[in-house]
């Protein structure tokens, strides 16, 4: 009898709980994502550049008021969230091609947990980056004036937008075979809507057809909610709904972003679990 036979005893196990498994999966994903500071910092660069350099430059060049800097600072959240979630989506392809995805698929856990574990990390890292962005903005003396439930509107919009965008990222990652194809599609999905969603100017400044397109983007609703929450500026909501009742408009926009979050997450889980099975 060999050493292996002498040392290892009979099986003993307990049923893994979903919450434990989710924490374990999220911990793994965080460790893989954050193993180099570069992967946390790179998605921040462009939004910080917009908030701290381009917005003040535009304000000066266009002779706009100081509130434009605040307007753009919040608009850059609409760039940060998609960029960050789509960067994180790359991890799904790396996992599949050269990581431990097959091992995780063989685990006695619902496979949807793999998607939710990634989502938890997407939320945590996006939260850190949005916090850093606002830290830089405040240090640059860009002013926000959240009041009462305003912060909650902002947080709800940011969280639901992150969930929706991560769902889109995970779906794309599960459907495309190679990293190159994934990266080539990111600008169209994650960046192009930012220019239409009222990030740098109100959606009504665009031709009417594009204004209507913008009303169907979750990013437009999320940015209007964030500005309502942190700047007490309800013009974005009014441009979407053309209603006088601001609270009702905000609730409707939150519902739209929530709907996108639920649908994109369900699609992501479905596509992932199907792509995992031959």
């Amino acid at each position, binding site marked *: 009898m060999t050493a292996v036979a002498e040392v290892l005893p009979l*099986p003993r*196990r307990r049923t*893994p709980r979903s919450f*434990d498994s989710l924490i374990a999966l999220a911990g793994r994903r965080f460790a893989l994502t954050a193993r180099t500071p570069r992967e946390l910092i790179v998605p921040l660069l462009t939004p910080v550049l917009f908030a701290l350099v381009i917005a003040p430059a535009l304000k000066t060049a266009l002779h706009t008021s100081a509130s434009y800097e605040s307007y753009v600072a919040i608009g850059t959240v609409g760039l940060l969230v998609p960029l960050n979630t789509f960067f994180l989506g790359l991890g799904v392809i790396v996992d599949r091609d050269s990581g431990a995805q097959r091992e995780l698929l063989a*685990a006695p856990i619902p496979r949807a947990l793999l998607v939710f574990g990634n989502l938890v990390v997407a939320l945590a890292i996006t939260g850190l980056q949005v916090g850093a962005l606002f830290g830089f903005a405040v240090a640059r003396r860009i002013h926000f004036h959240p009041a009462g439930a305003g912060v909650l509107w902002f947080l709800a919009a940011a969280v639901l937008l992150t969930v929706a965008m991560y769902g889109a990222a995970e779906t794309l990652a599960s459907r495309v075979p190679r990293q190159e194809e994934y990266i080539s599609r990111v600008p169209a999905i994650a960046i192009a809507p930012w220019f239409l969603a009222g990030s740098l100017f109100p959606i009504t400044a665009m031709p009417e057809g594009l204004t209507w397109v913008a009303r169907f983007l979750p990013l437009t609703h999320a940015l209007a909610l964030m500005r309502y929450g942190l700047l007490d500026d309800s013009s974005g909501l009014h441009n979407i709904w053309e209603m006088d009742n601001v609270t009702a408009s905000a609730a409707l926009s939150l519902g739209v972003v929530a709907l996108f979050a639920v649908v994109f997450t369900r699609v992501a889980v479905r596509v992932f679990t199907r792509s995992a099975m031959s």
Partner: protein
Amino acid sequence: MIEVESLTKVYPGGVQAVREIDFTVEPGEVFALLGPNGAGKSTTIGMLTTTVEPTSGRARLAGYDVATEPLAARGVSSVVFQESVVDRSLTGRRNLELHARLWGTRSARIDEHAGVLGIADLLDRPVETYSGGQRRRLEIARALVSEPRVLFLDEPTVGLDPLIRYELLDVLAGLRDRGDLTLLLTTHYLDEAERLCDRVAIMHLGEIVALDTPAGLRAELGDELVELRVDGSGDDALATLQERGMAGTDAFVVGSTLTLPVSANGVDAPAEIRKLDLPVASLTTRRPTLDDVYLRLTGGRLAEAA
């Protein structure tokens, strides 16, 4: 421990990867699926580990149906994959801890498992610094951390250098000696199957064409074989021998080498063959090996695959 009934997999496009295979593996048994590339071995393991959806048929692990109780079936099993399937930027310990948590087992014995497999000193290093053999040992240790009742090993030694391969065979022999673990492995290497396995199923074109102990499979070819190598076509030489009634349907050809089981009728087969007008390059007799069984059943495709 493993029960497979009429298991079939047809991939989109109509490719029949596995065709109504049946087999049972007893608790503590070491069972090999042997076959060339495309025989259906990995698809079979995929169905048993619930990563490939069966088209029809049933499979149960420790009584759990892989189609209707996949979580329970995965809970009693572990897999060592053909390719390296680890998080290379994480440490070996982190990889093992993750497996323990997902399978709901204690991680306190990780060092013990790693020690048995000779990688205890490496555990706190990133896996990307491991050699191929160390990585494969880590994957086996990881599979054992959850103390599975069934361990699947898909081509566990493929691509490894001979020294590491033999070291791993020792490890697998140790697992076999435990007696409480049911092992199902796929392999191209016949010596592995012969050395490790209680029973072997030979797969060819999605079907099981033979299933027995290694000794039982060898016995089908009798006690002795004649191996004839000719200058030119082995098929032509076989046709000549069949015309003369000196070769039956159990003879087989790989390239220019012809192998014939010797019937126990007292005829000196080599002497009779030398009397024929064949371009003989060499003529020997030897005892049958599992390779001969395999080559006869799969038409020499292993040689093509290797």
